[in-house]
């Protein structure tokens, strides 16, 4: 916005990185990275997953030392041996995943690890005065005496920001701060961030939602393949151009063209209600947010919908509003107290997980590493996971390694999993390739219903396009897809029909052709709760 800040020229840059190289065995994660962040500005760093953003931020936050290059903070060249050094230099980082203790109050969380003491006891009064000052100065609204477990995602983020400011940070690194927020919360976050900058704080934020980046930042630095390729101002570029800078080529879009929806109902969920969390899940992926099920509210509240062959039904919602429970109820991992689930007309409500999957349910899980992979096992064994009774992988009671490897090789080739061989353990693959492997495994089984939870989360643009293509092709071939995604563009672009979940219930049915991200956000935040039927 203001690319002619008066300080420019007089004040040294808040952060200056020159010629940063960071190598890991066999890999150059960052090479020749140059970054100048003007003091008191919002500086966005954008790039695909795997472009080297995290490595760069870890360098700046003292998580590791660069092999070459210099870091200059406010005109002074520094060497960070640990994050403690970085904090001492006034750098604070707000991670994408919040690290707050639920059973402590906001105040306690903020001072945790940096408690002011008075005669050997924690001086909460002093801490509170200090926090009140910070709240006033930076215009951050939060009630500090409440328990953290009652906070929503946006509030938790404000606590994290306060926590960092409390430690004296003047340079704030926000790692994908909007990933978990609904649009209204994003607006609030940006107001907070602007206020911080007005008060002289420098904000570096990592993001890949380009519209947001263009809206809020003063400068934008693009990282591609481990190096900084351009620094631009929002006036100079639009989202498309920025995306092309990130990818280095033309952008794919999630749009589906013609409808392939048939009349045949593949999945029918009717009146499904669940009150108790699945016993075997302890803080499982996707169940974060902590609000679901508390206060006696059902985890799933009379959920009914249908997915037809050739149809993609998208589910929008802030994480923790029942999406995970719904998926697990369909898979048989979550016990339900009322309602029924039919697959292709057959009642599967009381079948085991294995039998349901046999009946044709494929699943791309919420958290690929936790629920979808055996990290230390080779890829070909990972292909078998969940299908160790499929004829293509076994011979009688034995695993048929030869057959399984042949199938794995074919799937690896078809889905473009980048790996030297099928014998590589899964941990060695990048996140995007792990995801492609899971998609490959599930699609190889020829499911009749695919439950895809965040199918392209953390996946680079190339892999994203490949996964979208596969989903579209399978849809055209009659696959029914239940799509859960936090990426509203993906949801709107791919879905034939869109449901919004809020507090365990389906609160809206929207037509993706007319729905906008803002409108969707209002439903997701629970501000509108009408059963708007657009069929």
């Amino acid at each position, binding site marked *: 916005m203001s690319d002619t800040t008066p300080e420019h020229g007089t004040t040294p840059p808040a952060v200056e990185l020159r010629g940063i190289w960071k190598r*890991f065995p*066999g890999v150059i*994660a960052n090479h020749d990275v140059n970054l100048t962040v003007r003091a008191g500005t919002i500086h966005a760093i954008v790039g695909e997953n795997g472009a080297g953003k995290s490595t760069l931020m870890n360098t700046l936050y003292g998580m590791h030392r660069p092999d070459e290059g210099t870091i200059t903070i406010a005109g002074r060249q520094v060497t960070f041996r640990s994050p403690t050094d970085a904090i001492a230099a006034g750098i604070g980082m707000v991670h994408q995943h919040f690290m707050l203790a639920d059973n402590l109050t906001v105040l306690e969380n903020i001072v945790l690890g940096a408690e002011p003491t008075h005669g050997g006891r924690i001086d909460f009064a002093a801490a509170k005065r200090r926090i009140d000052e910070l709240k006033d100065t930076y215009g951050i609204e939060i009630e500090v005496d409440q328990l953290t477990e009652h906070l929503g995602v946006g509030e938790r983020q404000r606590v994290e920001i306060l926590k960092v400011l409390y430690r004296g940070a003047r340079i704030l690194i926000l790692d994908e701060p909007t990933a978990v927020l609904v649009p209204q919360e994003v607006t609030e976050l940006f107001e907070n961030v602007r206020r911080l900058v007005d008060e002289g704080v420098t904000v570096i934020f990592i993001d890949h939602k380009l519209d947001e980046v263009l809206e809020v930042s003063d400068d934008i630095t693009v990282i591609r393949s481990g190096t900084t390729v351009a620094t631009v101002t929002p006036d100079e570029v639009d989202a498309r151009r920025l995306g092309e800078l990130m990818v280095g080529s033309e952008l794919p879009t999630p749009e589906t063209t013609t409808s392939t929806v048939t009349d045949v109902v593949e999945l029918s969920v009717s009146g499904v209600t669940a009150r108790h969390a699945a016993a*075997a899940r302890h803080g499982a992926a996707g169940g974060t947010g902590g609000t679901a099920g508390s206060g006696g509210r059902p985890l799933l509240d009379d959920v009914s919908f249908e997915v037809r062959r050739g149809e993609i039904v998208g589910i929008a919602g802030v994480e923790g509003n029942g999406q995970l429970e719904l998926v697990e109820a369909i898979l048989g991992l979550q016990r339900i107290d009322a309602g029924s689930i039919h697959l292709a007309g057959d009642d599967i409500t009381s079948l085991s997980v294995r039998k349901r999957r046999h009946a044709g349910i494929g699943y791309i899980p919420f958290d690929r590493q936790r*629920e979808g*992979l055996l*990290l230390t096992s080779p890829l070909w064994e990972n292909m078998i996971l969940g299908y*160790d009774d499929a004829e293509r992988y076994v011979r009688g009671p034995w695993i048929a390694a030869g057959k399984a490897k042949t199938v794995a090789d074919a799937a690896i080739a078809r889905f473009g999993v980048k790996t030297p061989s099928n014998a590589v353990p899964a*941990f060695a693959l*990048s996140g995007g390739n792990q995801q492609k492997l899971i998609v490959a495994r599930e699609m190889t089984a020829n499911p009749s219903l695919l439950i895809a939870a965040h199918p392209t989360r953390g996946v680079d643009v190339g892999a994203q396009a490949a996964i979208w293509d596969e989903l579209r092709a399978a849809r055209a071939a009659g696959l029914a897809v239940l799509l859960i995604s936090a990426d509203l563009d993906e949801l709107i672009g791919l879905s034939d029909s869109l449901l919004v979940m809020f507090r365990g219930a389906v609160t809206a049915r929207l037509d993706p052709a007319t729905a906008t991200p803002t409108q969707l956000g209002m439903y997701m935040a629970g501000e509108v709760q009408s059963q708007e039927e657009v069929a």
Partner: protein
Amino acid sequence: MANIRVPDPRRVAAAIAAPLIAVAIAGGVSAVLLVLTGHDPAVVLNTLGNRLGETNTLMDAANRAIPLYLSGIAVAVGFKMNLFNIGVEGQYKVGALTAAVLGAAVTLPGPLHVVFCLLAGLIGGALWATVPAVLKVKRGINEVVSTIMLNFIAISLVAWLYTGVFKGSAAGELNTRTKYLPESAWMPDLVSNGSHRVNSFAIVAVLVGVAYYLLVWKSRFGFQLRASGANPFAARTSGVDPTKMVFRAMLISGAAAGLVGLPELLGDKHAYTDTFSVGLGFDGIAVALLGRKHPIGIAIGALVWGFLDAAGRFLDLDGIPREIVTILQGVIVLAVVITYQVAEQFAQRRITAETAAKAERLDLEVAG
């Protein structure tokens, strides 16, 4: 954890280097201990070295390796499922007593009687392992705690039973024991020169090793077991109930443990006596760790362990306490575990980097 599947010469070298380094470290630490206690490490090395070329000691080592191998397999089955069955000690005693009592109570023709005793041992061990299995599955009680406690109970219970209800020895007899097994249940020696021998139970041990390999590494059941052990969440999502697998693994482990006392019962003492070996269950943990849960590795571990047991006795002749061998064994296990862990981390890092490089990508995200 990461099984060696990438045929990379450097990886093979690393796999061989790790145990060698471990042995070197163990030797070094033991040498320091010996010097500190006023003994000459060279004498110990010499004594142990000389025994390596001696048939009698080697036969003793091999014979000793038989129960150690079975015990190692019993522990390893649990390890594969992330279960720490510390209760092999108790389970093998219950198994041995079951076989001793039931075996002496029936009359059967030759090989059949042996098979009957084997089954009795398997079932006895499995039944005793059912207790911690149920506690874990139904009540979430950590199997380490329950199996340790059950060891105490088993040891006392078995002692009470064979000196009481099942006592078969006469009043004036030197050793208290159960009734002798009829000769049809005895297992002959494979090799023998009078005082030193290797019992034919070695064949059973080999068969158990093969069965372990096929079951855990090659079968669908084994795949589900390993999947549940490696990632219970993924297993659950894929339709395998990790709880059931925990139960089954515990029972298989207990069954294998039930065989541990049988070489001594069927091949040597022919009754459960107060001279029965103790500590084989705990040694099995060490052997399983030494062998990295692999059937061949466990065999090597059992032979090394057996050799140290057999050769250690001769240290007394040099005026060196044979306990030094026990210390050496402990140090070897620690050194092996640590060395493998370090080697594993190096390997993981290298594989990750190489895979990324080969995939021509620059996407190593440290945070991830």
